């Protein structure tokens, strides 16, 4: 029989690829029954985020991402996480400042003094790109061990990754393949979910469907909990099916200081405060103010942001077309 040449290989470790093992986890742990998965944010993070997990999240701290869930992860001082840093911006900086991150697969993140210091303290960085990371998640969501991709070849990121350059058996041309990623847990913020975890996301996104399907455990935070009757009225709007979801958290303003399209605008002041904290190397103070000083998210919103500002952010979300079913 013929062989396929492996022309080059990245040299760093990557989250282990085990499609059959993932299948067995899904068989044994994903609940197929329509049973309520609603719980508080603390319980959700306590139960479903574990020290040492590979943690993914969709979108980021400013853009329909799970900011409240990320703060709760930091509040609970989770440790040794391997973070999926696709399209992540400041999130990986916050997780590192909070002592949660041990490794980061980078697509894009906000660098700063924190990064050099963390590297010197042992943080491990693996260089990918946003699309490579979403492709790895796509492979994980398809239950296959890898996917071919037409980018990433020739970069130095390739060298510090789990990718391979092979001779395509169909064309004979060099072809990059990237390993599947099946995170231990993913955090996804959505506009609407029902109590079972059927979710609706409106507007553009990154890869929330793939993220949810590829992950062993999935925590959803939702701006609104809608009735399942409403889900059944328009099944074409469902983007994540309940049977991959482990927890549904009702989290209004769950992306603060970021924006959730159709629901509220970003708090520009709050957004720039994060960047300033990174630039001025004051992330500890930032976390104190927004995370550690409060028992939970509601307390933080009440004390630090205030209802008046929240109302104003809501009022600024004047574009509604396409965001409500």
């Amino acid at each position, binding site marked *: 029989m013929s062989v396929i040449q492996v022309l080059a290989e990245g040299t760093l470790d990557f989250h282990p690829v085990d499609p059959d093992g993932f299948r067995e986890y899904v068989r044994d742990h994903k609940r197929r029954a329509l049973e309520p998965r609603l719980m508080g944010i603390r319980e959700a993070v306590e139960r479903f985020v574990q020290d040492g997990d590979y943690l993914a999240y969709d979108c980021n701290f400013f853009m329909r991402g799970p900011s409240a869930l990320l703060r709760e992860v930091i509040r609970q001082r989770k440790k040794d996480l391997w973070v999926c840093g696709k399209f992540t911006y400041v999130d990986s900086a916050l997780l590192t400042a909070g002592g949660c991150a041990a490794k980061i697969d980078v697509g894009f993140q906000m660098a700063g003094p924190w990064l050099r210091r963390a590297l010197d303290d042992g943080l491990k960085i693996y260089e990918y790109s946003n699309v490579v990371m979403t492709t790895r998640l796509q492979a994980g969501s398809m239950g296959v061990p890898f996917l071919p991709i037409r980018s990433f070849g020739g970069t130095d990121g390739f060298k510090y990754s789990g990718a391979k350059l092979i001779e395509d058996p169909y064309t004979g041309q060099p072809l990059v393949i990237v390993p599947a990623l099946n995170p231990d847990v993913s955090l996804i913020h959505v506009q609407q979910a029902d109590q079972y975890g059927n979710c609706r996301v409106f507007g553009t996104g*990154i890869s929330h469907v793939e993220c949810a399907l590829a992950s062993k455990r999935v925590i959803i935070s939702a701006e609104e909990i809608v009735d399942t009757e409403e889900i059944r009225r328009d099944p074409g709007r469902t983007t994540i099916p309940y049977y991959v979801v482990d927890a549904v958290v009702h989290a209004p303003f769950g992306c603060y200081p970021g924006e959730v399209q159709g629901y509220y605008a970003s708090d520009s002041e709050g957004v720039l405060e994060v960047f300033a904290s990174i630039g001025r190397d004051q992330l500890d103070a930032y976390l104190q103010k927004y995370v550690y000083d409060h028992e939970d998210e509601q307390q933080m919103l009440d004390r630090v942001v205030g209802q008046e500002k929240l109302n104003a952010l809501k009022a600024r979300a004047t*574009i509604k077309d396409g965001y409500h079913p």
Partner: protein
Amino acid sequence: MTSQPSSEPASQFTEREAQIVNVAHMVENGKTYWVAGGGSPLYAIILAKRSAAPQAQYITEDGCIAPEPDLPLDPIMTMVAAKAGYRALQWGNMNASGMHAQVGLMDYGILNTLQVDRWGNVNSTATGDYEGEGRRFNGPGGADSIAALCWRTILMTDQQKRKFVDHVDFVSSPGFLDGSEGARERAGLPRNTGPYKVVTPWAVFGYDSNRHLRLEEVAPWVTKEQVLAEMSFEPTLAPEIGVMEIPTEDELNTLRTELDVRGQTSDVGAWIIRNDDRSWTIAAP
């Protein structure tokens, strides 16, 4: 007294405005552009759409196809945001934009970049020794995919010695790699793609037939020698070095009153002033 918009060359503008306008003039009507969702690349394409290239279409990394954004955008909120995605033809996701680019639907990519080398390779990851004490940056984000998958890539950067280096310390996004013929294809990248232009406030570069960076145009307020002094390597020189274009009052008006009303992107760097005697003054910030 406000200046009256006109199609005459303007006499006062920032270097950044000049750079954006020169990229806008490169935009081809009826072509697709994969751009970052904000900043100079976005303003260049929108500026072009408002004038010579109304049928140029742009797509952002979050799968937003041909939006009509509600400008100005909120700070930082360039993607997955209501104003940025306003009146799009389709809302997709990152895998969708990646797929569209992978099948060849994206003609051009426009990228802001930190560091570029003689073969058009881009570094946004690290300077110095990667495995040692070097400085770290944000990572490629979507730039790697844009540089790999679009048919042609236009880079925007500043004319500084540390930005034009002989070899980038880290290839975050691929140019012509080691510059040899077929290097991209041997690395698994799609055939016949690659770097197209590099535009700074002072100069426009293309690539020669050996895939080496080539100086093609210089801004009227600097000399070729000034440009070359701000590079760590010697580019090839085009047989004739052209003169970069000057923003018109119309273009500046659109840029300042519609696109970048807070001036966050455009009001950066030196101001260029054309004196009555047709000489130039560079007012450093």
